[in-house]
């Protein structure tokens, strides 16, 4: 099996989104897309350095798109009906589209709802040779209204890893590395002490 390396890691919160300056389109996105996009931006990857059709995107949308679903459906009785723009974000995979558009990434995509097996699946994508590198992202948005509905803690954050099939990187991805959030925390902490 080919070795897989982590070449960048990041974690962002809603406060980071509020402070971010990523252009007017960014302001029109739903919070899940903003978090995912900002987490990718924070990786500091030079996407020009590799063929964009060989970069995959694997996303774990932990609470799906339910926070945006609620927001969209709140306006169901508005004159003219609910927002067509917001409707496009009522898909858990919407962030993949936004990331792909911003960085012109045309590789294969995967979006899983719920608990994280996203690292294992990103690894598999690379080991099969379906991509040369892969953005691996976990995004969790649970607004207070949604928290009450699904009895889950309020959350707003995203973690991202950039995985590569060859080259060095910050750390090798090990077989038992599964939880993206702890992996990001570990790599970010190690990186800041070096």
């Amino acid at each position, binding site marked *: 099996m080919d070795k897989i390396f982590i070449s960048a890691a990041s974690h962002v919160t809603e406060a980071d989104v509020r402070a971010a300056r990523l252009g007017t389109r960014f302001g029109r996105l739903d919070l899940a897309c903003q978090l995912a996009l900002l987490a990718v931006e924070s990786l500091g990857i030079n996407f020009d350095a590799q063929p*964009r*059709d060989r970069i995959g*995107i694997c996303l774990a*949308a932990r*609470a*799906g798109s*339910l926070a945006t*679903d*609620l927001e*969209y*459906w*709140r306006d*169901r009785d508005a004159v*003219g*009906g*609910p*927002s*067509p723009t917001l*409707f*496009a974000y*009522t*898909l*858990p*995979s*919407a962030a*993949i*589209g*936004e990331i*792909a*558009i911003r*960085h*012109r*990434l*045309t*590789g*294969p*995509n*995967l*979006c*899983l*709802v*719920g*608990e994280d*097996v996203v690292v294992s*699946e990103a690894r*598999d994508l690379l080991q*099969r*040779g*379906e991509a040369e590198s892969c953005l691996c992202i976990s995004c969790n948005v649970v607004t207070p209204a949604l928290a009450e*509905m*699904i009895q889950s803690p309020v959350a707003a954050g995203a973690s991202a890893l950039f995985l590569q099939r060859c080259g060095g990187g910050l750390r090798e991805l090990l077989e038992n590395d599964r939880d993206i959030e702890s992996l990001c925390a570990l790599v970010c902490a190690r990186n800041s002490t070096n």
Partner: protein
Amino acid sequence: MREPRTTLPPPVAIAGCGATTAVGRGVDALRSALRANATGLRPNPRFDSPRFQTSIVGAVLQNGTDSDDPAFQLADEALGEARAQACEVLSEIPAARIGLVLSTTKANIEALERLADARPCSKTARRHLQGNLFAADLASAHGAHGPVQCVSVACVSGLVAIQQGTKLIQRGVADAVLVVGVDCLSSFVVAGFTALKALDPIGCRPFDRDRCGLSPGEAGAAIVLVRGDRVPGSSIQIRGWGGSNDANHLTGPSRDGSGLTQAIRRALDAAGLQPDDIEYVNAHGTGTPYNDAMESQAMRTVFGKQCPPVSGVKGMLGHTLGAAGVVETVLCVVAMQERLLPGTPRLNIAAESAPASLVRESRSVAQLNHVLKLNTGFGGVNGALILSHG
């Protein structure tokens, strides 16, 4: 291009199928509709309101249901049928080695509508708002104690779920995987497509000159995947797949079809096949002007003047979103078993841009060994899956 493998992954075969759709309950109903080139699209009183662009949809039940968990019921029914068909193979596999991959875009969105309107909603129905918990409960109800995933990649979800199931078997994590696709008709979704002005008021007409939008549909569909060596004799196998992103627009396809072209070429490459090996293409064919034109362009690029027979079946079933890839793959399996090229229901006058090989009415063929299934979706996602007789 993918790098050549040193060892080929084990083949994965389809051991059973199930489908509950607008043309009836069970794969036999789908088979009959396929032969007759029938349509399941009809005006539905649930959507007969100025809030919606049209009431023409592909509904399983004309009058809806009182259930607060209709998506789970649809998924459960289709999976029951697929498991029954594969019972001999499945009975020899321990539950811990049977996985489940759910494909859905909205899971049990009925619960959100009910809660927003302060209507009664059970705890279970509320739990099934979350695709991962829906998948876990479905797995538990059907004796699948292996790995469970919920895939949601817009309208490509079904094809990605089939590839995820195949990967779990090829990685040795499971010996069988139950792949289930489901999405229900809902005010939530029909209002959304109305807001986008994406619905055809008289019902979708894929690849038609006058097409002007899609028709929403609902379906539950299931496929039992098993390691190839567990199926005696000839079987239909998952031969290869490819995925890509247009990186172009969130809700519209790229005009030049380059993303879908890339996905098809990746699938051919993974399957070790050439374009002229493909004997039939089941298109995504939503009936929207841009999607069908883009798909036609992608097929022209890949196949040139030798395009194999192509058809789209959303005029039969409607656009079933997260279920689409699974239910349309089930239809391809039936077509391969019956050696029958599916037609394009509701097609009147073919668009100039449509492939010349567009199949209008279903017809028999001598063989159907390699079939290409396509889906595309919001977010620029593209998927291609190749099924082959093994």
